């Protein structure tokens, strides 16, 4: 029974931590740390799922937690590490449009914006303290922060991590809609496929961000535009 009282607090703490990890994803410059943060974020989602199991007794959430552990805490990070080793890059120092401090400020604004917006729309239906409301705010904020990461990070590999974190945001939101998770898992599987595809394409020769890779090719006169009418 204590668990029942602890669980909401537990979930809240985890949600806040998810946001913090999102911020970290925006600002970290070491690729290794990025992957670790992502791992940590996914782990937090597992914890949230467990908390929800206690609270709402949906056993299917256990399945979700297990799948998350397998894919996100272990599988994908391992895969990314593999690629990282191949391309011999440890640091991601290049940003476009915004430097990390600015991005962090912006993400605070984003959270505020999402909070205010959702509060206005959802206040009639949910108490401000309801988990669904919190989940939606934090989930959408995380998605937006992930998008911001995709936008400002120039290396493709960091972009991928940004994308993955967006997905975590969707999952975080989805966890609170108790009947959905089964589909959410499907989503993950699909996006895993995308990821595999992405990485396999990228290993064709990518070792830096997409735009740079083009210019580098040009530098070595390797670029053979297929030209023609296209």
């Amino acid at each position, binding site marked *: 029974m204590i668990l029942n009282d602890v669980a909401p607090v537990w979930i809240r703490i985890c949600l806040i931590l998810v946001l913090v990890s999102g911020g970290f994803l925006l600002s970290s410059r070491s690729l290794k740390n990025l992957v670790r943060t992502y791992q940590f974020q996914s782990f937090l989602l597992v914890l949230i799922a467990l908390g929800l199991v206690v609270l709402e007794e949906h056993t299917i959430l256990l399945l979700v937690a297990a799948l998350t552990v397998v894919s996100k805490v272990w599988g994908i990070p391992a895969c990314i590490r593999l690629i990282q080793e191949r391309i011999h890059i440890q640091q991601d120092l290049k940003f476009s449009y915004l430097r990390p401090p600015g991005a962090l400020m912006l993400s605070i604004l984003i959270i505020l914006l999402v909070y205010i917006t959702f509060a206005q729309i959802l206040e009639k239906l949910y108490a401000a303290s309801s988990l669904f409301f919190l989940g939606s705010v934090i989930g959408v904020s995380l998605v937006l922060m992930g998008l911001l990461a995709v936008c400002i990070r120039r290396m493709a590999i960091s972009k991928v991590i940004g994308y993955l974190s967006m*997905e975590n945001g*969707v999952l975080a*939101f989805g966890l609170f*809609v108790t009947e959905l998770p089964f589909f959410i898992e499907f989503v993950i599987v699909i996006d895993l496929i995308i990821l595999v595809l992405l990485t396999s394409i990228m290993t064709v020769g990518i070792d830096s961000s997409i735009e740079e890779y083009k210019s580098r090719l040009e530098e070595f006169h390797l670029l053979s535009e297929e030209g023609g009418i296209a």
Partner: protein
Amino acid sequence: MIAVLYPVVAMVILLLQLLLRTHRSLSLLGVIHPVISLIITLYFIVSPGIWDDSPFFLIDHMSLFVMLTTSIIFAAAALYAVGYIDGLVRSGDLEKRSLRIFYFGFSFLLAATTMAIFTPNIALFWICAELTTVLSAVLIAILALRATIDASLKYIFICSTSMLFSFIGIIFLFEAVRNKTGVGSLLWTEIVDEAAGLDSGMVFIAFVFFFIGFAAKSGIVPFHTWLPLAHAKAPSAVSAVLSGAILNIGMYGILRMTGIMKETGVFGQVSVLLIVFAMITISVACLSMLRQKKLKTLIAFSSIENMGFILLGIGIGSPVALFWALFHMLSHSCIKAGLFFSAGILHRQYKVPTRTGEDEIGDLLLLQPFAAVTVMAGCAALIGMPLFPLFLSKVGILLAAAAISVWIPAIVLLLFACAGVALLRFYLPVMAVRFPAGEGPVPYTAPLSMKVPIVLLLLLSIMIGTVMIPGEEAFLAAAVADLGFGVQL
């Protein structure tokens, strides 16, 4: 249970494609699959009595209509691919081992598209739509050139990130339904039934988020950025499918969602939102067209323009406008696919890469009279000349728009004029370029299988542009009614 044939056929074809080895058999399977789909679809269309027999499929006028468009385009593209891919392989552009990936991907793409159209579940629909992104990305990158991989990566990044928002939208919708009835639902039909009393705030959030993803899928500005790259870099058979079928999936999603919105209290806002996006899309696309130097990029921008126009029809939301929006969808697919096919022939003729990256077309009427004429006809069709169907939908949608505001048709027409000028401004100088004697490329003779689909599609579009096929009007009207937009025309 005839609908089960779709997945069954797909399975069989996919399996066979894994097993069979020869190029010929692969391409044959590639043609058979869409043709069978087309036949099944036609069978469904003529026998409305059996629609309800298939429990796991959402079969109504709307989905059948989109499926019809899709299978026509796929069938034409598969036929075209027979000659086209063969040429690519012979010239060494496409590696032999990629062949299987191509055909497998192609059939799988059709299967995914079919499932997306017929699934009754929104989340499944979303997943299938995502699958089509992945599969078409594979097809875009099939030539394994840097530029194509680059384009395909951008496609995936933009589409997938945007599609995640759609999923948030779906979750909101689910929650909204649950809020009303206590039990959440993801079935299109059930949501439409429950739509009337849903909380307007929630529903609007759901719509906006849902729209983001599917707008990206159908190339609505500002989510369109992947489209000119992907469509231009892809092999022409794939470009045609992308423009003619995959973009429609995005529109299909928006259509169904707008149908749900019609029942709720927020349709006014939705309508404004859609019209604003449509106008932005048309403006950006038409103006961008003026500056394009490559044929396929130009055609790709024109796809954006037309998607914007369909969106305008949806945004207006009157039955007439929706009727013509659907009509526009079908006709645009046919014309655009034909145009990409013709561009493909030109591409095969003038594939010599140049340092400048500019097109180097010359002796057009001497070397490729067929392609030259069909490109011209396609351009005329895109400009919206009478006898071609786009003219009709232009009249229909703009008439509905004029009832809302005079400015909409005025601006749209001016922009269309820009687009028309852009097409010809590109094409006229190209027509007249002459190579110095003896320096021109070797004439490329397009095989019959590449020419037939072009002619067929052009004929088809002229047919739907000049006569109402018996039952067509009623069918389209019923499709509009399926969406929840009343029946009066």
